[in-house]
C-alpha cells in the first residue's frame, strides 16, 4: 500500500473535514440497525448546523441529529425505530413545531433516488405511490425549490409510459437522483484504503455510498491491506468510493451491528423517555454527548455490563438472551 492510499483518520477529523454547516448528508443503516451513531454523536458534538439530510428509514441516527439541532431540511420515508419509537420523537416535535422542513417519499423511492445518484442518471421510474398524496403534497414548494440549486425543480413527476403500455404499465412516477455531499456508513470490516464488508442486510448503504461526493466509513474492524481481497465475494464497496476510514468499535451503538452486537433496548427506551421532555432531553445531550469527548467515553458511561449484555452470539448474529422488555 502506498502511503497516500491510507485513508485512516480520527473520527473528529473526518467529521470536521467532510461534514460542514449546510451540507447535504446521508447516513446508512435502518431504524435500529447499523446507524453510524458514533459519527452522529460527533456531528452533534461539533455543533454542525443547517444540514440537509437524506434518509429512507433511519430512525435513531436521524432523530438524534434533529434533537441535536443539526438539521434544517429532511427528505425521508420513515422516522421511527419500531417498538422503541413508533414515530421518532424529536423528529415529530420538530415537524409539528415547524423547525425543520420535510419532504416525504416512500422507502423504494428513496432507494431509487440513491441508486440514480450512484448510476449518474437524473431520475428513475417506479409505479409506487400513483394516486397518493406523496405525489400531490409537496414539503418543498416550487418557489422554494427554485431558490435552491441543490434541490431539483420538482419533487417527482408522473408520466405516461412512453413505451405505450409495455409491461402492462400505463403510468410511471419519476423520482430525482440524490447526490449527497457526504454519506456516512458504519460497516463490520474495512481496510486502510476503504474496501468494505457488510454482514447481514446491506439496506441501501451501497447505493448511498456510491451516490455521494464523499464517503466516510466507520468500522468495527480495521484490516490490513489486502485482507478483504482474499475473500472478495463478501465485499460490497470497493475503495475507489472511499474518502475516510475510521475504526470505531461499537460505532453503531446503541443501534445493532449484525454478528457483533445487538441494539441496547435499555438505552433506546431511556432515550425515548428523555426525548419526550425538553429538559430531560437537554440533560441527555449534556450527559451522553457533550460530556463524552469520544464514543469510548459514552460506552464507559453506559458501563461494561450493559455493553457485554448486547454482544452477539456469533452463530445467530444477535444476543439470544438479551432482555428486551
Amino acid at each position, binding site marked *: 500500500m502506498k502511503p497516500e492510499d491510507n485513508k485512516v483518520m480520527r473520527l473528529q477529523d473526518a467529521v470536521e473535514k467532510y461534514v460542514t454547516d449546510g451540507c447535504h448528508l446521508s447516513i446508512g443503516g435502518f431504524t435500529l440497525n447499523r446507524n453510524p451513531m458514533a459519527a452522529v454523536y460527533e456531528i452533534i458534538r461539533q455543533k454542525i448546523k443547517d444540514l440537509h439530510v437524506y434518509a429512507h428509514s433511519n430512525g435513531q441516527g436521524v432523530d438524534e441529529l434533529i434533537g441535536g439541532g443539526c438539521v434544517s431540511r429532511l427528505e425521508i420515508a420513515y422516522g421511527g425505530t419500531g417498538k422503541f419509537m413508533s414515530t421518532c420523537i424529536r423528529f415529530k416535535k420538530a415537524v409539528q413545531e415547524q423547525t425543520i422542513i420535510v419532504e416525504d417519499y416512500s*422507502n423504494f423511492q428513496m432507494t431509487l433516488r440513491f441508486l440514480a445518484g450512484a448510476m449518474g442518471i437524473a431520475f428513475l421510474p417506479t409505479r409506487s405511490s400513483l394516486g397518493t398524496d406523496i405525489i400531490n403534497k409537496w414539503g418543498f414548494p416550487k418557489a422554494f425549490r427554485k431558490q435552491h440549486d441543490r434541490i431539483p425543480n420538482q419533487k417527482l413527476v408522473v408520466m405516461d409510459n412512453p413505451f405505450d403500455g409495455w409491461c402492462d404499465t400505463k403510468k410511471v412516477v419519476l423520482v430525482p437522483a440524490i447526490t449527497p455531499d457526504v454519506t456516512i456508513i458504519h460497516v463490520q470490516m474495512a481496510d486502510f484504503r476503504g474496501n468494505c464488508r457488510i454482514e447481514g*442486510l446491506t439496506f441501501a448503504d451501497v447505493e448511498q455510498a456510491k451516490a455521494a461526493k464523499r464517503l466516510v466509513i466507520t468500522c468495527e474492524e480495521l484490516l490490513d491491506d489486502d485482507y478483504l481481497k482474499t475473500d472478495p465475494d463478501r465485499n460490497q464497496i470497493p475503495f475507489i468510493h472511499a474518502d475516510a476510514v475510521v475504526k470505531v468499535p461499537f460505532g453503531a451503538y446503541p443501534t445493532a451491528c449484525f454478528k457483533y452486537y445487538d441494539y441496547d433496548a435499555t438505552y433506546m427506551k431511556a432515550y425515548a423517555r428523555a426525548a419526550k421532555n425538553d429538559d430531560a432531553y437537554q440533560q441527555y445531550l449534556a450527559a451522553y454527548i457533550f460530556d463524552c469527548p469520544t464514543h469510548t467515553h459514552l460506552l464507559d458511561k453506559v458501563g461494561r455490563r450493559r455493553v457485554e449484555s448486547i454482544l452477539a452470539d456469533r452463530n445467530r448474529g444477535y444476543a439470544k438472551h438479551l432482555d428486551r422488555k
Partner: protein
Amino acid sequence: MDYTLKELMTICAAREIKNNDIVFCGTGISMLAAMAAKNINAPDSVIFFETGAIDSRLEDIPLAVADPRIMYHTSANGGLMEAFCTMQNPLSGTRIVGILGAAQIDLYGNLNSTVIGEYDAPDVRFSGSGGACDVASFVSRSIIFMKMEKRKFKKKLDYLTSPGFLDGPGGREKAGLPPGGPDKVITDMGVMGFDEHTRKMFLIGCFPGITPDQILDNMEFEIRTDRAVEIAVPTQTELTLLREKCDPHGLIL
C-alpha cells in the same frame, strides 16, 4: 376460553395467510401475525421484510424490520432494492400478502400514516410511509390492522399515504397502479372486507360480545353490516402456539 383482544386480532390475521403466500410484514402485531401463521396454519408461508431478508427463521421475535433477528438463517440477505423489486415485479409481487397498520383508514381502504392536519403545518406527525405505500401500490392483497375509533375510520383522510382502492371501482387502474388492494381490515371489534364490485368496506363479522351497531358507532362513515357473521374465537391450539412459540416473553402481546 381466556384470550386477549390482541391475541384474537393476531390469530384472525394469521388465518388469512395461506401456505406458499409470501408475507410482507411490518413492526409489532403484523410481525407476530406472520409468525403465528407460520407456526399455526401456514407452515410453508414465506416471511419477507422490506429491508431485504427473505424466509428468516425467526427463532426470536423481531422488534423492528431491521432487527438483527430477521437476518439469521434466511434464504438471502439483500437490501431494500432487492425487497422492493420483488414487490414491484408482478411475477413475485402477486404472490405477496402485505400486512399494514395506519393512523387513519377510509371507506376504500386508503391509509394515512403521515400527518393529522395540514401537511405543511401538521397537528400530529407520524412516521410516514416507510415501505407501506410501496407495498400497498404493488402487492395483490393486504391485511390492515386498525383500532376502532371515529378519528381513525375517516370520511376523508388528512393525507393519503398508501393506496387502497383510491376513489372506488377502477380507481387503481385509472391512477396507473397494478391490480390488488386491501383484502381485510382486522380491528379490535371485528373484521371488515371490501365488496368486489363497489370496492367499499363492509362488515364481515363481529368479535364475541360486539354488535354491528357498536362498530358503526366507532366509524365516521357507514358500511354495510347485513353480511356479518360471527368470528370464530381462537382455539386452544392456536393460543398455545401463539403464546409459547411466537412471543414467549410477551414482547408484543
